[in-house]
C-alpha cells in the first residue's frame, strides 16, 4: 500500500517535472520558425509588469500570458518588431523594455558604465604611475635568502 502510494507520488512528480522541462512557462509555437525566433526574442525583451524582474517569456502570471498572446497575434498579423515594441511602450512605458531606448531620461543608464570604466581606468593609471615613480629609489638587487 505504502509502496504503491510512493510509486504514484513519484509518477506525479516525474510527470510534472517532465512537463516543466518540455516547455518552461510558455508552450507557444508559431507556424514559421522565423516568427518563432522573433517571438522568443521579443518576449524575452519585455518585462513582466507584475513580477518585475522576470521577462514575459519566463513569467507564469496571467498578465504575462495575455501579453505574450498579444505579441503572438501581432506577429501573425505581420507587425514589425518596432511596431510591437511601440505597442507595449505606449501602454506600459519604457519600463517594460529590459533594454531601454536611448533618450534624455535613459541616457545615464547607457552612459554611466562607460563613465565609470573611464574613471576606474584613470585611477588605475594614476596608481601605477605613482608606484612606478617609487621604483628608481629601490635599485638594490634583491638578496636571495641571505639568512640561510
Amino acid at each position, binding site marked *: 500500500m505504502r509502496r504503491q502510494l510512493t510509486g504514484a507520488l513519484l509518477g506525479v512528480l516525474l510527470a510534472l517535472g517532465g512537463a516543466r522541462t518540455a516547455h518552461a512557462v510558455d508552450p507557444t509555437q508559431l507556424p514559421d520558425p522565423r516568427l518563432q525566433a522573433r517571438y522568443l526574442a521579443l518576449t524575452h525583451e519585455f518585462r513582466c*509588469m507584475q513580477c518585475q524582474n522576470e521577462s514575459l517569456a519566463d513569467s507564469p502570471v496571467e*498578465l504575462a500570458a495575455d501579453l505574450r498572446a498579444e505579441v503572438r497575434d501581432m506577429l501573425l498579423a505581420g507587425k514589425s518588431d518596432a511596431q510591437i515594441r511601440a505597442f507595449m511602450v505606449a*501602454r*506600459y*512605458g*519604457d519600463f517594460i523594455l529590459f533594454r531601454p531606448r536611448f533618450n534624455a531620461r535613459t541616457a545615464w543608464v547607457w552612459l554611466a558604465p562607460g563613465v565609470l570604466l573611464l574613471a576606474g581606468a584613470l585611477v588605475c593609471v594614476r596608481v601605477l604611475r605613482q608606484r612606478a615613480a617609487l621604483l628608481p629609489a629601490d635599485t638594490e638587487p634583491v638578496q636571495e635568502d641571505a639568512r640561510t
Partner: protein
Amino acid sequence: MSRFLLPLAVFALLVAVLAMGIRHAPEKGVIPSPLIGRPAPQFALPDLADAAHIVDSHSLAGHWYLFNVWGTWCVECRAEHDTLLEVRKAGVVPLVGLDWKDNDSDAREWLEQLGDPYQVVAVDHNGRAAIDWGVYGAPETFLVNPQGIVVYKYVGPLTHDVWTHDILPLVPGHPVAGS
C-alpha cells in the same frame, strides 16, 4: 591629503546617488503611466448589468469620470470598496468600472453584497481593454477629463486620503471638501 580626499569625494557622491534613489523610490513600485496626458483608450464592452447592452467609451466623453479596474479575485479591491462607495456618495465624479478577467455572476454578487459604487461596469473577459489601459495590477484608478484625456492614475487600493487630497483637487469646481 588628496589620498583621502578623492575616496571621500567618491563616497559622498555614492551616498548622494543612493539617497536620491531612496527619496524617489516610488511607493510599492508604482510605475509612471505613459497614458497620462494622452487620450483614454477606446473600448466597447458588454455591460455587467445587462450583457446585451454595450458600454461604449464614446458615450463617456464630455464629462469627468473615474475609471476603476477591479475584479472579485482581487483582494485589494475589497479593501478599496468603502472608498469607492464614498466617491459615489460624494457625487462629484461618476465611477466607471472595468471588471477585469472575472466571472460575471461573481461580480454581480459582489456588488449586491458590498454595494454598487459604479455608474456602469464594463466587462473585460479576455483582458484586452485592460492591456490598452496599461493595467498591470488591480485595483487601478484613472481620472479622465471631459476631453477624454487621462489626467491621473493611481495604482493600488484607493483610500480616503488619495480621494480627497489627490483626486478631488484635480476636478475643477470641486475644491477639497474638508478631510
